């Protein structure tokens, strides 16, 4: 008889299962779009109109960055809270209610996005997942996003309820580490989502409904990034949780230090939000000083990640030595490399280290000018969310599936091949994206092939980079197919009695070593809020003062499929569009040894 999560919490296991399956559904469609746009951009295979590319990209961004990741993590968090507190949810109906709300929200946002593919429905939301005004999506899109976020808020309420009920019964105990991680992440998320809630409810939704005439594009953009940066930590913190509480277990050892893990999550809670302006280093209308503050906070945010790197490696080493590994590096051989769960997570961690380097370039406020909005950035976040997060989630799925279905995984070898393929595919794709970005190839562009702009590679060529990107994309797609094959085939397996028990890693240095103050969530919340107020009050006031709360009069830009509408609008507003001027051939004029960086001085 096994003692899986399903055996312990049969009702909760169903919720977790539903959340995971929703997440995988988003991953499947999002992934399909990923390969479509990869082949289109690189001009390897184009079957749709380039205007539709942006609809595909909107769906890819929303489905993967928001839907896939968040559905998965609410499942993981529900598992973490129930397992570590050893109690079921307080009210199962409530739990299903927030899950249902998230599903409804997703569906509502998806309808106008997908309607963008057809002319027969007069609806669209090809505004990308950043929905910068004055580009305007259908109201249903904004409403769906709001409901989805409200669903996650209620999920947070659920986890807090469990904790309070538990605390009433265990007044003198330390918060178990997994629950501590869930609670700090949830508080961070509450603060972060205030930005996007304000952007949508006060401005974008009323504007899309025609209740207000105009919006301040810089204000809604800043509110978006108030949320848009910390959302990254909403994905990363559950990933870190897996690295802290699961990876040591799979390596055969214990977590190195429980107190340090708490410190890391507290640092994330207080530093995640007051950094969003680092996405706006290039925005006119925000003073340099504010950008500098955001950069400083961002750099300090490196600290918890560097600490995590240490703890993860130290825990792995401990596990390896338990398994009989010896030597300075010899212990690496003793790790369970045949286990897809371990290997997937380890490779994800390795890629995250690489992502750290490109992230440091992004974070430097003047170096950022070279790479901002180029393909470099896309390369960067396919290492972070696209691998550190996504590959960890996929790998740990191989452990979770038996826990929530009571069925043995269909094939461990296929799973192992799958995680390795993801690593290989992403190495090709992301590396080439970074390099293309350095040449100035822009992101979010259906056809980065211009008449009057050439991208000069010092080594290799744009063609070679495109080939690598396309190859990487194809390998990633094969990896995804293997993943789904495993998930689906596991569903067809019969119940098994010999599954590993539910549980997570113990710590070498346990919570009793952690100062009590670490568990003082009120204190950390207060500090987090103060830091946000410091970082954001003046920039927001200044933006409103400059451009007005509802902005200057802007030209609303409903994103409809007909590309004619905006062109007509452009001409109407005095567009003297002299397109033919561009036709002059450039190539000859370019010197072979040109210096790529024009000097910016002041």
């Amino acid at each position: 008889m096994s003692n899986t999560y399903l055996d312990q919490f049969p009702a909760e296991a169903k919720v977790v299962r539903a959340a995971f399956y929703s997440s995988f559904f988003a991953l499947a469609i999002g992934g399909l779009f990923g390969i479509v746009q990869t082949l289109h951009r690189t001009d390897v295979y184009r079957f749709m109109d380039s205007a539709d590319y942006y609809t595909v990209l909107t769906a890819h961004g929303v489905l993967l960055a928001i839907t896939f990741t968040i559905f998965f993590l609410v499942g993981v968090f529900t598992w973490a809270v129930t397992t570590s507190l050893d109690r079921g949810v307080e009210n199962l109906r409530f739990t299903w209610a927030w899950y249902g709300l998230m599903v409804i929200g997703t569906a509502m946002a998806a309808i106008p996005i997908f309607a963008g593919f057809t002319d027969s429905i007069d609806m669209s939301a090809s505004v990308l997942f950043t929905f910068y005004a004055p580009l305007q999506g259908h109201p249903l899109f904004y409403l769906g996003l709001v409901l989805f976020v409200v669903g996650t808020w209620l999920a947070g309420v659920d986890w807090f309820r469990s904790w309070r009920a538990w605390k009433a019964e265990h007044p003198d105990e330390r918060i178990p580490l997994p629950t501590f991680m869930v609670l700090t992440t949830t508080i961070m998320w509450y603060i972060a989502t205030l930005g996007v809630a304000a952007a949508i409810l006060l401005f974008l939704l009323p504007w899309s409904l025609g209740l207000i005439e105009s919006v301040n594009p810089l204000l809604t953009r800043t509110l978006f990034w108030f949320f848009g940066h910390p959302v990254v930590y909403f994905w990363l913190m559950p990933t870190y949780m897996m690295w802290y509480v699961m990876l040591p277990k799979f390596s055969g050892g214990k977590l190195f230090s429980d107190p340090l893990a708490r410190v890391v999550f507290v640092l994330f809670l207080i530093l995640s939000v007051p950094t969003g302006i680092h996405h706006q280093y290039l925005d006119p209308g925000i003073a340099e000083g504010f950008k500098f503050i955001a950069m400083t906070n961002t750099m300090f945010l490196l600290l918890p990640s560097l600490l995590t790197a240490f703890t993860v490696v130290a825990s792995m080493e401990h596990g390896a030595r338990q398994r009989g590994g010896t030597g300075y590096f010899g212990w690496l051989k003793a790790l369970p490399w045949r286990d897809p769960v371990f290997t997937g997570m380890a490779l994800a961690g390795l890629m995250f280290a690489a992502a750290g380097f490109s992230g440091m370039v992004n974070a430097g406020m003047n170096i950022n000018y070279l790479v901002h909005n180029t393909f470099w950035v896309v390369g960067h976040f396919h290492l972070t969310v696209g691998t550190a997060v996504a590959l960890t989630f996929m790998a740990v799925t191989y452990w979770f599936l038996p826990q929530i279905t009571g069925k043995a995984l269909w094939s461990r070898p296929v799973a192992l091949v799958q995680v390795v393929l993801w690593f290989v595919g992403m190495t090709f794709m992301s590396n080439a994206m970074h390099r293309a970005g350095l040449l100035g190839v822009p992101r979010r562009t259906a056809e980065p092939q211009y008449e009057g702009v050439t991208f000069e590679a010092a080594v290799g060529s744009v063609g070679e980079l495109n080939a690598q990107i396309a190859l990487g994309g194809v390998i990633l797609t094969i990896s995804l197919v293997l993943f789904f094959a495993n998930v689906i085939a596991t569903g067809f397996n019969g119940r098994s009695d010999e599954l590993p028990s539910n549980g997570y890693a113990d710590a070498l240095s346990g919570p009793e070593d952690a100062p009590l103050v670490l568990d003082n969530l009120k204190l950390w919340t207060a500090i987090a809020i103060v830091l946000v107020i410091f970082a954001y009050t003046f920039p927001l006031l200044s933006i409103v003062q400059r451009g007005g709360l509802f902005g200057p009069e802007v030209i609303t830009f409903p994103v409809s499929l007909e590309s004619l509408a905006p062109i007509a609008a452009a001409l109407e507003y005095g567009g003297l569009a002299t397109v033919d001027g561009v036709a002059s051939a450039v190539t000859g004029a370019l010197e072979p040894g040109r210096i790529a960086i024009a000097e910016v001085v002041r």
Partner: protein
Amino acid sequence: MNVHTYEKLWLIAAMVLIVGFIATITYGSVGLGIAMVGDQQETVEPTELADDERFGEPRVEQIGDDEYEVYVVAQTFSFQPDPIEVPENSQVTFHVTARDVIHSFSLAGTNVNTMVIPGEVAEMTVEFDDPEVYGVVCNEYCGPDHHNMEGQVHVVPEDEFDLTEVSVDAPDEVDAGESATVDVTVENRMLDGLETTAELEIGGETSVEEVALEGGEATEVTFTVDPETLEADDSDVEWAVTVDDHEERGTVTVIDAGDEDGGDDGGETDE
């Protein structure tokens, strides 16, 4: 809390690294004077750009010996002016705004890169040393034709650069046997004086006038064309006005007495 020795060392190394980064960038920004796009510029009304002093006429302006200002408008799906022409060895300040949605103004492969937000004006100063053609892309999604939004910055040799504006006022048609007058306005928008010629070529004849202008001055040169010159095989007579490398072309239609339908092209041009 007991922290392992190695962990302490790691923590210290991490802090040193972080402080080091911040210090490097602070030095870069303050010490080396590398500027960021900030909030130096006044806001504008995106719907009223046509009447705006700075952006009503997107253009290049000279403000010092080797210093120029460029006023750029980004809109779906083009940049104005395009191409932007500036001389080598110059210091150029770009002011960029958007007429409609958010765009970017990015010289491909360089760190000359800024977001362009309606209502706001991005300012950045760039030094251009050698003649070169830079491709400009919009790297922020701005609508279904975003991928077609591009432009160029031409950095040209000093002796090929001027800010001369030429406009020609010539009649569309003249009656046979009458003479025609062609007025050429030459404006020198550079700070230095300009000595050149205005040349009119019409019906196979060429006449040349000297033009001498102080910086910022404009003048009008008038050419009178004899009736004989206008006697061509065809009733449409082509003309061309050339000032340095600026050329304006058009046609004059000579109307015979009794011939009622005149030409409809030619006439007033403006560069």
